[in-house]
């Protein structure tokens, strides 16, 4: 095909090519899967937030405190007046619970490990806000 012969001819390589080759490094090829993996991870996080179901659904601090104490032996005082609304709690595994608020969860474990202890429980969260209310 004449049109291909006329338009697909050889071209001159840019001068910068030698500098790049002289650098001696191959270009870093991005994985095709990386964007998909990131999208999937983001979707999983979003879905986890949407479908998070506490074992106990309640906004009553006294009820949640009693429920946690009965199942784990941890006495976690929960403030009766909070800026963030309490929504419930659940036992993640033996000796580890999550207190759920509308904005997120606070992970609490029995006070036999390392870290700051408050009576029978310790906070595993690193957020200052969690420590502030659960100390």
């Amino acid at each position: 095909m004449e049109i291909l012969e006329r338009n697909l001819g050889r071209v001159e390589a840019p001068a910068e090519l030698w500098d790049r080759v002289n650098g001696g490094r191959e270009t870093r090829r991005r994985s095709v899967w990386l964007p998909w993996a990131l999208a999937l991870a983001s979707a999983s996080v979003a879905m986890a937030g949407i479908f998070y179901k506490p074992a106990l659904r309640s906004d009553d601090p006294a009820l949640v405190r009693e429920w946690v104490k009965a199942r784990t032996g941890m006495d976690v005082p929960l403030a009766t007046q909070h800026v963030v609304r309490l929504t419930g709690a659940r036992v993640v595994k033996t000796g580890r619970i999550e207190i759920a608020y509308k904005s997120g969860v606070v992970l609490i474990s029995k006070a036999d490990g390392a870290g700051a202890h408050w009576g029978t429980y310790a906070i595993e969260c690193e957020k200052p806000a969690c420590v502030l209310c659960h100390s």
Partner: protein
Amino acid sequence: MVLDGNDREVISACQRGDRDAFRALFETYQDRVYSIALRYSGDRAQALDIAQDVFVKLLKNIGDFRGESGFETWLYRMVVNRCLDDKRSARRWIGLVEGFFTRPVEPSALNNVLRSEVQARVQHAVALLPPEQRVIVVLRYTEGLSYAEIAEIAGCSEGTVASRLNRAHKFLERRLKRI
């Protein structure tokens, strides 16, 4: 230092780590490698990446060249493999779309403008071919290689080269019939 085809002396010097010899080899083949990469990818930045990788790999692996096939065939095979290995289709498409809408315009002459436009359309049509057909079209029309040479580089029979080229021609004729 002038390299003439399969100049064993220069290649041997490269194999001994002679940087000047490698520079001579680079000077001789840079336009061919870059042209194949550009015509295959349709994107300047991607073509530069491909050409860079090919020469870096060439420098690293030139000791493996035993002269069983011609040096050019060996090098072309490296370029073709790198082209086919390129999975950054998104970037290629972005490049094509950009190229299509921002065609280089030379105000000096209408002929130049028209030529650029036709070239962009041809490049765009070629980019729509499946990689195995595209690479054969590029070797045929950019490098002017014979079916036998293309078959040796692509690692397939001459019959396969002919049938892929035939399918590519039919597709391109349909796409470019209005030009």
